[in-house]
């Protein structure tokens, strides 16, 4: 059997990589992608715990996360597309409309 800790560590590594990617990258799409990475890291942790606890609920939650991620991706990408259409750029530092 593979020890559960392996999975957790993998999940942590993926999550941190996602975080780093988010800060290092400057275009919205890749930043969005790194968010997906983080989401998947979370999914992995869920499944691993579900396995560890012998429960199906974790899997159900992952199922929901995936669905929500699909919805989120659709809307998010639509927004990015819209931004691109208007500003002709997807650099995240160009988006500072909310500056106080």
């Amino acid at each position, binding site marked *: 059997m593979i020890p559960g800790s392996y999975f957790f560590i993998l999940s942590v590594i993926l999550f941190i990589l996602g975080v780093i990617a988010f*800060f290092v990258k400057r275009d919205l799409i890749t930043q969005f992608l790194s968010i997906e990475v983080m989401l998947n890291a979370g999914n992995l942790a869920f499944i691993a715990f579900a396995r560890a606890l012998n429960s199906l609920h974790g899997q159900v939650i992952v199922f929901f996360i995936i669905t929500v991620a699909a919805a989120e991706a659709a809307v998010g990408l639509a927004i990015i597309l819209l931004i691109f259409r208007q500003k002709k750029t997807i650099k*995240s*530092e160009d988006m500072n409309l909310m500056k106080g």
Partner: protein
Amino acid sequence: MTEIFWLIPFLPLLSSFILAIFGRTLPKKYISFQACLAVFASFIISVISFFGLLKISQESYPLIKSLFTWIASGSFTINFSLQFDPLSAVMAMVVSGVGFIIHVYSVGYMDKDKGYSRYFTYLNLFTFAMLLLVMSSNIVLMFVGWEGVGLCSYLLIGFWFEKDSAANAGKKAFIVTRIGDLGFLLGIFFIFVHIGSAEFTAINQAISGGAVTQGLATLIALLLFMGAVGKSAQIPLYVWLPDAMEGPTPVSALIHAATMVTAGVYMVCRMNLLYTLSGTAALVVGVIGAVTAVYAATMALTQNDIKRVLAYSTISQIGYMFIGCGVGAYSAGMFHLYTHAFFKSLLFLSAGSVMHALSGELDMRKMGGLRKYLPFTYPAFLIGAIAIAGVPFLSGFFSKDAILTQAFANKQYFIWILGVLGAILTAFYMFRLIFLTFQGEERLEPEAKEHLHESPPVMTIPLGILAFFSIIAGFIGVPAVFGEKLNWFNKFLEPVMRPGHEVHLSIQTEWLLIIISVAVALFGIYLAYIFYIKKPQTPHQLNAKFPYVYKLLYNKYYVDEIYNAVFVKPVVRGSEIVYDNFDLKVIDGAVNGSASVTGLSGKILSYLQTGLIKDYALVFLFGVILFLGYLLF
């Protein structure tokens, strides 16, 4: 039949109500018919009830009709109930009787006015309020009538509201009398708190039972008198009455003769036990009355406006009534009120007739020699003037004499002297009025002369009736020298005015006093004759000699100006200053100041909002770390 006395005030009210709602659609003829009929019916009922009253024994006075409980809250219980006793009977008959005549006169006078139905609505309402005032069985309900009268005077004085002066005068009347009402209201509260009831019978019982101390009686009496001073236009609150001339003339007649200004006198008479108990208050009443009587008369001397002269004369005459009350001769005061109602309404209506003839002209300097153009108005006016001047055997003579005699008998010589002085002045200014208006040379404007005409019968017949009563009304209160039994009026009122300080003088003294007052009246008339007929240049000479006196009198002692400068202006200006500096700057400034401080700090903090998603994420990450750290350690 006496039981239906409670209908007296409500008939005019009903009529007023109908007119208020449907008046605009009803034909003029019907309006005047209904309005007059309602008041006439009231008069008839008062007369019937009056005779009913004579038939029953004095012990059953007053008749009380309780209609419903009006206010009931805690200890504050007020019934809507009316009472009928000799005092109310006299007042009700005077009010409805003279009121009816004035209604009839108005039919002619207001014929061409566009506010015809509105006028009669108000007039009926006025009659109602006054009747309620004199017939209510408790002081709170009396206050209702009291205020109602004030309201109607406001409405009627400001009847021609398109004129600024009329609107102003109405407002002034309402507010000035309200200042007095404030004292009245406080007096009511004192009565209620200390006596526990507002019913007159209970109050009188408490007073005669000794439940009221003299100090309390003085306090209450003075507070109530404050109301009377306002309503009855005495010093210092008389200023509204001369301006009240802005209303239609019949209204002036109504205010001056039958309603409104007599309310104060009625109230003092109604509460006579209280004033008798507190000698001080009675003295104050007498002195204010006497001073007002002379003071107002002096102002009447120089006025050129025919109605203003009459207005000051009213103030002066009301002063006489208060003299009567002040010296304890309440029935004498009431008697003067009763005779005054006739001759003063006669004078006003005649003046109205003159105005009618001259298309609204009021300035006596533009009249003169009207005698031959107004064959009916002139004698009517003359009778009124003789009556008010106190020439023997007309009504004014009896009543004024009764008051002065009582003042003398009660050893209030100061008041008596003022009274006599006032009598001279009265005779003088009334005949000045007559001479300037009806006698002497004509000073008419040419176009006014063209329209000159005597009034229609609907106006002259009321004048005739009033003139008749001005002559004979005094004979029900003949002085004691002509026979003890003859003073029927006093006797009738006795159950209400329990004998106070009425002192009887020896026959000789009384004769002497009568002779003095006759002499005084004739002297005043003679003086006027000299001034205005014989040597018409005298007034001008006097003016030249004493310019300041003339100016002072002509400008009514500058009282209006002084009140304006001392009370009105500072309040308005002060409020403006407070509003601009305190309300807007301090209070609102504090509010807006705290708002701008908040806004400023928000602005400073908003620099943290870079709008860059990465910075937010960084903060977010930081937060997550902190949170996780908190969970772990």
